[in-house]
């Protein structure tokens, strides 16, 4: 528990009403979407970089851990206050500072909800593509800190491809600027790229300059059912090899289809063992040609049925099939381990086959769906923790899946980050020299290890 003196300093910095040590608040800021809970000692909601700077300086002097937090919707424990201390809630910094239509950029504060930003830029005919599933409630600051992805990233890339610059409060409380507002810029180290995906361990982001695109004129959504997962996976590889980059290339395997079959508006025939949802966007006249070419590629690979949306409403209906997977997973088993591996796109069929084999060997269901277009698969290992041996089997499955992923040249996390959930597996992917290099950076910038300690790296720095 923090001394009264510390609490008073915090109150002086941000104002009394923005500091809380109430038990109810400590409970409510203890978790994220991993459901692990660690109570912070105090919740502080600063208004700007200046206040954050003072907080970090004090935390350094007093050796208090600080855990930056947006919406708390991460999947790997990135914002969870594992060692108590200060939960630094950044949602008051929620202004869209400007949308510059001459230069196609936006400057925002980290607490802006991603969907609000997208709505605002789309109103003036612009486009911010990254679309994590949580976009209606997650913050842009959290998206940047974790380098969030989403279905549209196949064509448009992930969060890091849109961050031009930022204002950051360093772990020791200095306010720095990284990058800038220009499309090019090579003066000094690329600290922007270093900060994106650093999971709140290297600084607190207080302003972000984002690149925007012109909003595509139209889109076309198709749902293609296959008689085998292999056919679907090969279609993905062939589309990419055919030099077509759709906006999204989402897939669902047979187990995922089974989960949604009853509730879907769409008739899913028994012979369908996998589904691809393919969307293309751009100029209207180009779309038809692109869509036809994609269906042509899929045709010989065991297509059972194809639906093409004729309206936005029908497109929404097709997407609903994909979106209803996650919530219905509980039909398979009550507990899930959710991994987000990413493999080179051509290796997708191999990876899917390997996961199927692992699932069969261990006798536990594994449901796969996700962003096939960029090789990013959401692997859901479904277990029942109340059954003896299930937890151990899940652990074995995770290790075997990661091993296979790495063997195929992939990575164990495409967009969720490491946080606490994947920290134990870091040595599988990164060699010790690389880990030493990363830790050297963290140690140099945060010698007292007060900013989001206990994340990414398990052992002490």
């Amino acid at each position, binding site marked *: 528990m923090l001394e009264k003196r510390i609490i008073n300093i915090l109150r002086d910095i941000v104002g009394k009403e923005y500091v809380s040590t109430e*038990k*109810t608040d400590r409970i*409510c800021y*203890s*978790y994220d979407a991993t*459901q692990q809970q660690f109570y912070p000692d105090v919740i502080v909601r600063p208004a700007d970089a200046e206040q954050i700077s003072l907080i970090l300086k004090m935390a350094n002097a007093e050796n208090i851990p600080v855990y930056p937090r947006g*919406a708390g919707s991460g999947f790997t424990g990135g914002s969870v206050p594992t060692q108590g201390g200060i939960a630094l809630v950044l949602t008051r910094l929620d202004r869209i500072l400007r949308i510059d239509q001459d230069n196609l950029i936006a400057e925002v504060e980290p607490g802006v909800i991603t969907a609000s930003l997208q709505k605002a830029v789309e109103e003036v005919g612009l486009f911010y593509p990254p679309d994590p599933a949580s976009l*209606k*409630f997650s913050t842009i600051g959290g998206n940047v800190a974790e380098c969030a992805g989403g279905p549209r990233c196949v064509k448009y890339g992930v969060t890091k491809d849109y961050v031009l610059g930022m204002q950051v409060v360093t772990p020791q409380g200095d306010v720095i600027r990284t990058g800038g507002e220009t499309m090019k810029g090579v003066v000094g180290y690329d600290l922007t790229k270093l900060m994106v995906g650093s999971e709140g361990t290297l600084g607190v982001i207080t302003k972000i300059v984002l690149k925007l695109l012109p909003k595509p004129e139209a889109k076309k959504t198709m749902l293609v059912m296959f008689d085998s997962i292999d056919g679907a996976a090969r279609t993905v590889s062939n589309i990419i090899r055919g030099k077509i980059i759709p906006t999204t290339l989402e897939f669902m395997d047979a187990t995922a289809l089974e989960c949604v079959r009853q509730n879907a508006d769409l008739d899913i025939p028994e012979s369908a063992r996998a589904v691809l949802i393919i969307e293309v966007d751009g100029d209207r006249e180009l779309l038809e040609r692109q869509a036809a070419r994609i269906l042509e590629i899929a045709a010989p690979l065991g297509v059972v049925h194809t639906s093409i949306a004729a309206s936005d409403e029908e497109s929404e209906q097709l997407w609903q099939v994909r979106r209803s997977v996650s919530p219905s997973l509980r039909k398979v088993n009550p507990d899930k381990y959710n991994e987000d591996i990413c493999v080179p796109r051509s290796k997708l069929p191999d990876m899917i086959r390997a996961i199927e084999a692992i699932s069969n060997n261990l006798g536990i269901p594994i449901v796969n769906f996700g962003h096939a277009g960029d090789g990013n698969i959401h692997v859901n290992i479904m277990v029942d923790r109340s059954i003896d041996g299930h937890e151990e089997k899940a652990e074995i499955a995770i290790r075997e899946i990661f091993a296979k992923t790495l063997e195929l040249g992939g990575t164990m996390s495409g967009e969720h980050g490491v946080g606490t959930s994947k920290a134990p597996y870091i040595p599988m992917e990164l060699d010790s020299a690389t880990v030493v290099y990363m830790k050297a950076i963290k140690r140099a910038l945060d010698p007292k290890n007060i900013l989001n300690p206990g994340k990414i790296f398990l052992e002490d720095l």
Partner: protein
Amino acid sequence: MSKHKDIEAYRKQLRECVKCGTCRAHCPVFKQVQSEAVVARGKISLAEALMNDEIELDRRLISDISQCLACGRCVRKCPNQVPTDEIILALRRRIGREKGLTLFGRGVSTVLQRPWLMNLLTRLGRMFSWLVFRKVPQNSGLRLRFPSPYISRDRTIPEIAPRAFRQSHPEFIAGDEDKPLVTFFTGCMINHMLPEIGDGVLAALQSLGMNILIPKDQGCCGLPALCAGDGKGAACLADRNLEALTAHKADFIVTACASCHSGLTKHFRDLGPDHAALADKVMDIHEFLVDQGFDEKLLQLPRQENPQPVGYHVPCHLREPGLKEAPRKLLSALPSIRLVDMKHAGACCGLGGTFSVYHYDISKKLGALKAEGIRDSEAEIVATACPGCIMQLQDTINHAGMSQQVCHVLELVAADLKNTDLGQANRTDAKLR
């Protein structure tokens, strides 16, 4: 006597919350307050902590639990359909049991459980209202003259009706012999404050030749008591309504208040099979009329020139598919009005029953958002399907210094039925049987 489930019975559902944060995108109160303790997953965590004895029922926790409009958005949008609304009501019942009801909650429960007391109070209230209230301009309500606990002084509330609806109508109004018997559950607000809505319901039902039953023994739906944490009182009301509404074998039971509808169809199901059967039978009046093809009939009325622009506010308790479209269908079919778009039409009005009494400041902020949408629209009239929303929206409009009038869809329906063949169809031979 029937009894609601204890919070302990929700352990399994509590575990189904995966803390994904979806509720943050949909909770109207959270958008204003920005405190995690307000949003569904926060309340679920607090409920878990309470049941695991990690936290006590202290003032702060009780206040957090009170910050809910019972609008149900978090439940509808939850990927795992965790029944946070029921869980909050169960928590409030526990608070009521262990800490006692608030003075206001006690008042609400006491009055609503005793129709004679309610009748007396409303009569007295009307008699002395000139003493207690002053009229605000444009006949849009009353405002308190003196400060009083729980009701903010600048709040406008509707006038009390000269005569309660149920007292001014016979219990049974005969229609065509071959037509169904429809039981009308009025609810308290229509009975005592806005009887013109009830008149609208009768006009519509009579134009279809329905036989109408308005049971004298019906009471409050029980939702206010339930929201205040008075589980016993609410269950008592539910039992009484069960008896009153099932005494005659009606073909349909209709409500014209979205909150009563939600109370009767949702919140008393668990009390037993009879309660569940009653819940299955209750229909919203708009849904019922559309089912009966009434909108088609309205479409046949001669169109009027220069129809008045009307916006529709969606009550939180009428957002389910099926219920959501019916009022709009009726409005679109009316000859004298033109249904116009209104920004934030689906946003909560901010009343949330007792919520607005305890948290009038947040309630007003939610209202301000509505006012903005109404101001920016062409609407001269805001129609809705819930007397509670009507009260709150009129208060909001009065505060914003705007001139729009708020009314119930059925009032507009009744106005358009007047002096038409459809409206006259059965009125003349309406008689006591």
